[in-house]
């Protein structure tokens, strides 16, 4: 089985739209199929990262919120 390609982006402390911009920059360099865990603290990402992903054809796999910290996992897709 191919090893799962998983990466992490720490956008904690950044205010929207910076977490989206950092996500966009990172995804630009990732191969389709990669999972990207985005850590953030601005609740705005709950809307903005899924919206950005829909617009670019990537898939939000999961969203978790633990006290102040948010983790959104997206799967990079071919666009």
């Amino acid at each position, binding site marked *: 089985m191919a090893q799962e390609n998983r990466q992490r982006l720490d956008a904690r*402390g950044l*205010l*929207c*739209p*910076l977490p*989206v*911009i950092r996500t*966009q920059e990172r995804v630009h360099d990732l191969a389709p199929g990669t999972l990207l865990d985005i850590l953030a603290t*601005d*609740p*705005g990402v709950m*809307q*903005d990262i899924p*919206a*950005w992903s*829909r*617009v*670019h054809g990537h898939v939000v796999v999961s969203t978790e919120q633990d006290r102040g910290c948010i983790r959104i996992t997206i799967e990079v897709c071919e*666009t």
Partner: protein
Amino acid sequence: MKKAIALISGGLDSMLAAKVVQEQGVHVEGLNFYTGFCVEGHTHAIREKHRSRPRRNNALWVAEQLGIKLHIIDVSSEYKDIVINPKYGYGQNLNPCLDCKIFMVNKALAWGMEERDFDFVLTGEVIGQRPKSQRKETMPIIARESGADDLLLRPLCAKNLTPTRPEREGWVDRAALYGFHGRNRKPQMALAESFGFSDYAQPAGGCCFLTDAQYASKLQDLWDARGERDYELDDIMLLKVGRHIRPASHYKLIVGREEGENRYLEGYRKRFLHMRTTGFPGPLALIDGAPKRRDLTLAARILARYSRGRTLPRVDVSAHHTDGVVEMLNVEPLSPTDLPASWHV
């Protein structure tokens, strides 16, 4: 198929402009620039009182409505030069709109035409919409100085302007573009309705904080106090948050107005001398500048005035220095009459 880059602010005009061209069979992608002054997001993310409103990034929302890709580009560091030295000056406040437009069109050109194979740039500008930057005379200036020349199309007012290359070469049909002008928004609203758009954002002054009189006066105060026109990204973020109180030119207090702001200011506590009341809830205050020892008492008294202990005879305040040293102060909260209005930036 021809490809156009649309400058998407998140407002109605750029949304319509992109749609009009898209309807003509052109492939459109959106660009949105993050200057650090964008109204988008920040205030909403920080302040509790805005939490009930749906928090969305309007530019992304527009892209979804149009079914186009939207690329958000961080230009905050280069943008500084535009804000500090605008060749064409400022609008009503510290908004360098004309220079800003030239900068953005130029960036779009570099992004889309030099690095990718786009054919032209489009904006939602309307002649006469804004007193300074959107006038008939400024349209050619933007086209020329940005380097876009006749590859810059304004679909909403194209009929009032000289035909551009996309029109001349038949990439778009000039007859199906518009001739809007002036401040009347009715034609845009009717066009929005014909496309079935509702719930779009209608920003009042402009797309950024630089058009806001209060914000602009805080930025001016920062420049005056430092004796130079410069700023870091953190400075301009902090200007959006809290009460700014300047008792003297060499320091000011940034006092959180509510929980959301206090939490945000917390993020800066390692980099600033900061103060809080001890024993009962109160705001967090960052001290920006270089306060002298004797200033700390006054700063603590001001902070105490905004805490729950404001009516008590004395209040304990802790001052946390950046080297980790914590100093305890016991002060009399400043009475509202002792806090001159002129200290409020």
